[in-house]
């Protein structure tokens, strides 16, 4: 008979064999045996959060900044329901996370026991897959399969629910290489793209008059090599390229082919180029509604190539002409081969005319602003933050709202995995715990959460986590005392009736930081900004920098919901179509 282990020991052995170094968690009744096993070993570090929601966002930040799988350990019932938001977030943004949850003992399942909930039922739509493990002998197999599924194909969250009696029961442990995962359970992802389609796509690109690359987060998920290959191919073709919110960093923003971000608050030139292009090469993006605007007016005259690992993304929102399913790294290699073999090249004269048009659009300078008086413009705050952290090993996270868009617009990213933001789900409260996770994965990095005053309050409790684990995360609050994006929409679409979007009774963020034994800083005037940012960077402790910004500032340029790419608003004085605004109101 092989050696026997308890379920809790098997959990730890599985995690070790999967190369897990850190888990983010919070103990409770139904996971006590696992916490007991954790206590008896020194290989895996546990980061104790202050609410389970913080654990999963931290695991996401850890995963996105390191390329490894984030691991979460929480108890049954409320422990589970608190991670549902984060699981959905990881699902939407394709972040590989394995979430281990305790469950009441099997004989109590279904009896409405204390801290019982239908974990697999609740989390089924917000995970790639989930398990309720009833047999301790199957536990190690489930773990190894879960890690494979989380990282395989389009990455995402996987949950393992373990009843307490299974954690105590004794059984055998199987090592990762001693189990075989049936092929169909791993989506049999196509790694290589279809040769014929790659040839057709190359031909289309070579003959294009107005091509554009539309680059998404899939490039980052595919790995560093993928980003480099995309950069090389963009350079080879000489075509302009724009990135989604999730794709920022694939192309350095200093790259001459980069038009920056596109979409609702994207660059004027990027959106107009998308609208007017004749060939669109979508690499790892998913035609999200924040990007497309009105579907029937989305890039009406272009042939569309869509490269994606997830077949269900093809033709979901936009019908494409040449779909290529597979991993971006392999496909970009194939493109290079096909391109060379057939001696394809783009017509530089034709492209020059296209670039000329783009240069015209650039002259609008859609991000221009003027820092006139002592009231700090939020754009200026982000701009100075960028300039003063330039060249440092910096990772930026954000919450959700105006500050997130200003960060995307004014902070310039040169590398992938340096920008962590909640794109798909738009989770306020994501940024600070994600920064904690990123700091755990990158102890040497300068990790800054660009936050809003409303968002930061959603996971403020994690200050305690950051200070306990000596994580010198910096929170850079653009404080306008409003839920800024809500206020902006109310101003533009609801007649300036600011219903419940003003945050009264905000805490004194400096004193709040100090009460956690962290550092609190404040800038009230433009002249104080640089000093505060510099002090924040130099402080070897968790810092809250409370930056008082102009309360009424809006985030522009903007494509309103229900409008097309060529209907961008550049400022609030611009007259916009009243009728379109009425119609856009019903959208989100």
């Amino acid at each position, binding site marked *: 008979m092989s050696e026997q282990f308890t379920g809790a020991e098997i959990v730890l052995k599985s995690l070790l064999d999967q190369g897990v170094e850190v888990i983010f968690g919070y103990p409770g009744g139904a996971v006590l045996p696992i916490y007991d096993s954790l206590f008896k070993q020194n290989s895996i570090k546990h980061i104790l959060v202050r609410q389970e929601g913080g654990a999963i966002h931290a695991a996401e930040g850890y995963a996105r900044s390191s390329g490894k799988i984030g691991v979460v350990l929480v108890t049954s019932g409320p422990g589970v329901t608190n991670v549902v938001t984060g699981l959905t977030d990881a699902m939407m943004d394709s972040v590989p996370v394995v979430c281990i949850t305790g469950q009441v003992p099997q004989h109590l399942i279904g009896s409405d026991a204390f801290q019982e909930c239908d974990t*697999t*039922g609740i989390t*089924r*739509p917000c995970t*790639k*897959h*989930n398990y*309720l493990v009833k047999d301790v002998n199957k536990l190690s197999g489930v773990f190894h399969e879960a890690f494979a*599924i989380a990282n395989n194909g389009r990455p995402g969250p996987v949950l393992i629910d373990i009843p307490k009696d299974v954690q105590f029961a004794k059984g055998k442990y199987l090592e990762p290489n001693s189990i075989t995962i*049936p092929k*169909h*359970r791993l*989506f049999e992802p196509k790694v290589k793209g279809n040769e014929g389609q790659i040839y057709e796509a190359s031909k289309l690109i070579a003959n294009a008059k107005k091509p554009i690359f539309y680059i998404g987060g899939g490039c980052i998920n595919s790995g560093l090599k993928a980003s480099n290959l995309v950069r090389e191919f963009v350079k080879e073709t000489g075509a302009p390229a724009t990135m989604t919110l999730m794709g920022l960093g694939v192309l350095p923003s200093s790259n001459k082919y980069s038009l920056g971000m596109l979409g609702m608050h994207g660059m004027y030139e990027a959106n107009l180029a998308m609208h007017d292009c004749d060939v669109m090469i979508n690499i790892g993006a998913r035609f999200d509604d924040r990007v497309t605007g*009105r*579907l*029937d*007016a989305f890039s009406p005259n272009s042939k569309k190539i869509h490269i994606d690992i*997830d*077949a*269900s993304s*093809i*033709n*979901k929102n936009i*019908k494409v002409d040449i779909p290529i399913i597979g991993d971006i790294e392999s496909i970009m290699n194939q493109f290079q081969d096909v391109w060379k073999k057939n001696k394809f090249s783009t017509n530089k004269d034709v492209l020059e005319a296209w670039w000329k048009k783009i240069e015209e659009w650039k002259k609008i300078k859609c991000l221009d602003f003027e820092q006139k008086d002592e009231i700090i413009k939020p754009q200026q705050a982000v701009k100075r933050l960028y300039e003063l952290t330039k060249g440092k090993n910096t990772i930026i996270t954000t919450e959700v709202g105006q500050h997130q868009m200003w960060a995307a617009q004014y902070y310039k990213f040169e590398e992938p995995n340096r920008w962590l933001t909640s794109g798909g789900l738009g989770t306020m409260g994501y940024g600070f715990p994600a920064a904690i996770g990123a700091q755990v994965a990158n102890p040497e990095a300068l990790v800054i959460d660009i936050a809003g005053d409303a968002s930061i309050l959603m996971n403020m409790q994690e200050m305690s986590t950051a200070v306990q684990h000596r994580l010198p995360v910096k929170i850079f609050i653009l404080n306008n005392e409003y839920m800024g994006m809500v206020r902006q929409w109310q101003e533009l679409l609801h007649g300036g009736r600011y219903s419940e979007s003003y945050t009264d009774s905000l805490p004194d963020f400096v004193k709040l930081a100090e009460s956690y034994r962290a550092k609190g800083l404040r800038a009230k005037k433009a002249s104080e900004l640089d000093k505060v940012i510099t002090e924040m960077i130099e402080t070897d402790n968790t810092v809250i920098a409370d930056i008082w910004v102009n309360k009424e500032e809006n985030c522009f340029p903007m494509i309103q*919901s*229900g*409008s*097309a790419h060529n*209907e961008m608003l550049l400022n609030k004085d611009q007259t916009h*179509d009243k*009728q*379109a605004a009425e*119609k*856009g109101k*019903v*959208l989100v």
Partner: protein
Amino acid sequence: MNGSNKSVYDTPTNVSETRRHILTILVDNEPGVLARVIGMFSGRGYNIDSLNVAEVSNQHLSRITIVTQGTNEVLERIQTQLMNIVPVHSVTNLQTEGSAVEAEVALVYMDIDERNRKNAYQICDFYRARRIENEHNSIIFEIAGTSQRIDSFIKDIRNITQIEIVRSGPVAISSMKKDKEE
């Protein structure tokens, strides 16, 4: 600048017409697999007209047969989403495959007396419905066949007597030669 748009809700262009489709889905027979499949339908707003699940003879596999309505584009999306479910082995749209045989079963309880017995039995005979013996001696018929055939049986028998009916919803199988399949 936004004149021609009739609706703010986006209407995809070149949509094919809505038709009935039969999907046959082979899955690992494990807890929760049915919930995963039907949850995908409800969560993404697709319809299920009928649903059938049964274990296939060997290897812990189950076959789920779903009848749904949709355009070709919608069906393509349903199929790729189903393939993303971990325990799903394969999804076949028997509508696109063209040559498939389908059948469903109905059990019909009839209220029959001396006056309508002869007519009712004639119709049952015509449709090859079979009477099922039971301990209460109630008149219960079983009919199998395509859904249209059962529809017309029900229509005819309702002209004669009151009935109570339970239908299974169709199952279907490809009628193409096996060696042509993958």
